[in-house]
């Protein structure tokens, strides 16, 4: 029994320490964002983290939009609600599926890349070299990545939203026999701009957490090649968990 409570206690302490350290890193990063960022680094990170993720985001949202329409179209037609299909897809993609799926894809692709790069820099003493040369690793490495993620995850989400809605249209028109006019008219009737903008706010928050967790896990990577792998896995898993939890709270706040 003592062992059980001991393990639970140690787990809770470790978890609280982890959360505390991430929050402190986030606070320090936000503090350093007040200074003018190194725009060259921000743009190169945006190209690296954002543009390269377009194909996988497109593919994910295309098939998600298609399969979702496939599942709902039959039922909606049965109840004579085919005129709402486009709106339902647009709202679902804009509010939830777009930001969450893009967040998960970015956590896997971008978060892991950030962690692998920073943990390798740590293992090879490059982070120490930055500090020795009077350069803050937070300002030099984390701030540009955070700005890039906070800007590019929403951009990817807009792209994903469009592709997801187009995927829905493909199935609605090509498979379920709904007219194209009805699909687009339904979107303009039921969906509002806030469905999309709220999703973009979520995407920016997810981008912030993907960057800070990716950087944190990289900076805390255990020594050696195995450490890089461990840190990368930890970063992706943490970011995905945080995205799902944050998504719930953000939905409660943004769409009450």
């Amino acid at each position, binding site marked *: 029994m003592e062992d059980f409570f001991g393990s639970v206690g140690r787990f809770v302490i470790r978890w609280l320490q982890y959360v505390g350290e991430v929050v402190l890193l986030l606070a320090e990063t936000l503090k350093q964002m007040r200074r003018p960022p190194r725009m060259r680094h921000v743009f190169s990170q945006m190209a690296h983290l954002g543009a390269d993720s377009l194909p996988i985001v497109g593919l994910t949202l295309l098939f998600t939009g298609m399969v979702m329409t496939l599942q709902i179209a039959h039922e909606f037609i049965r109840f004579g609600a085919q005129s709402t299909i486009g709106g339902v897809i647009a709202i679902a993609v804009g509010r939830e599926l777009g930001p969450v799926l893009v967040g998960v894809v970015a956590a896997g692709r971008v978060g892991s890349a950030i962690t692998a790069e920073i943990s390798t820099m740590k293992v090879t*003493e*490059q982070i*120490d*070299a930055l*500090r*020795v*040369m*009077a*350069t*803050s690793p937070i300002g030099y490495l984390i701030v540009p990545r955070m700005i890039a993620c906070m800007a590019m995850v929403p951009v990817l989400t807009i792209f994903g939203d469009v592709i997801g809605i187009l995927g829905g249209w493909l199935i609605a028109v090509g498979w379920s026999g709904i007219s194209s006019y009805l699909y687009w008219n339904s979107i303009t009737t039921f969906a509002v701009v806030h469905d999309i903008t709220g999703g973009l706010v979520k995407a920016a928050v997810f981008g912030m957490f993907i960057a800070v967790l990716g950087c944190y896990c990289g900076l805390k990577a255990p020594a050696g090649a195995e450490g890089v792998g461990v840190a990368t896995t930890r970063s992706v898993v943490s970011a995905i968990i945080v995205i799902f939890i944050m998504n719930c709270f953000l939905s409660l706040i943004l769409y009450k």
Partner: protein
Amino acid sequence: MIELKHVDKSFGHKEVLRDVGFRVEDGETLALIGGSGSGKSTLLRLMIGLDRPTSGEIWVNGTEITQLDEEELDEVRLSMGMVFQYSALFDSMTVGDNVAFGLREHTDYPEEKIREIIKEKLKLVGLPDAADMMPGELSGGMKKRVSLARALAFGPSIIFYDEPDSGLDPVMTKKIGELIISTQKATGVTSVVVTHDMETACFVADRIAMLYEGEIIALEKTETFRRLRDPRVRDFLRGFAIEEGDLARDK
């Protein structure tokens, strides 16, 4: 000038350094020697402010650095350079960009002047044509030399060398040793060289300090260090690792 007073460092319950104190004069080269795990690299990290001691004072050029925050430490670090054990070159940048890193971060020098400094520092370390190469194209010895050029670029008054001879063949070790001496002569820089190699220490240093289980057990001029009678120093001088000596005695 660097001065350490009663410096202790512990990681959790493990005491790594105990009551360490010494002084390195301006323009002097001090070698810190000791076996693996004796605390040499930890001591070096404390002197450059990468870690903080558990207690004690560390003075660098008249500033006590243990109580400074990171921004204040950065001011002090601008007068220091470091050559890392594995060079720690930024592998996404060319050699020239590595050397120019500090200048681009902390000065408003025009690009022309920065290029001149890159050329001058690379020439000083014997690599005048390496500016456009990537770190991945360099041998271990060349990386060490680029690391030294990067450390020198900002014109520091103190340079720390962390195991400058590790992973190098004897010929390259000798060359790096000669480079440490010629750099000191050319720039008058104060140097602290951490090494486990007695030959390197004797070759480059004015004085040698020996760490054993976290304590300084000897600090002598190079010429008198070899004559010390302390059995732990004798073991090291005979080329035995301290741990192996202990094992032999235990048997």
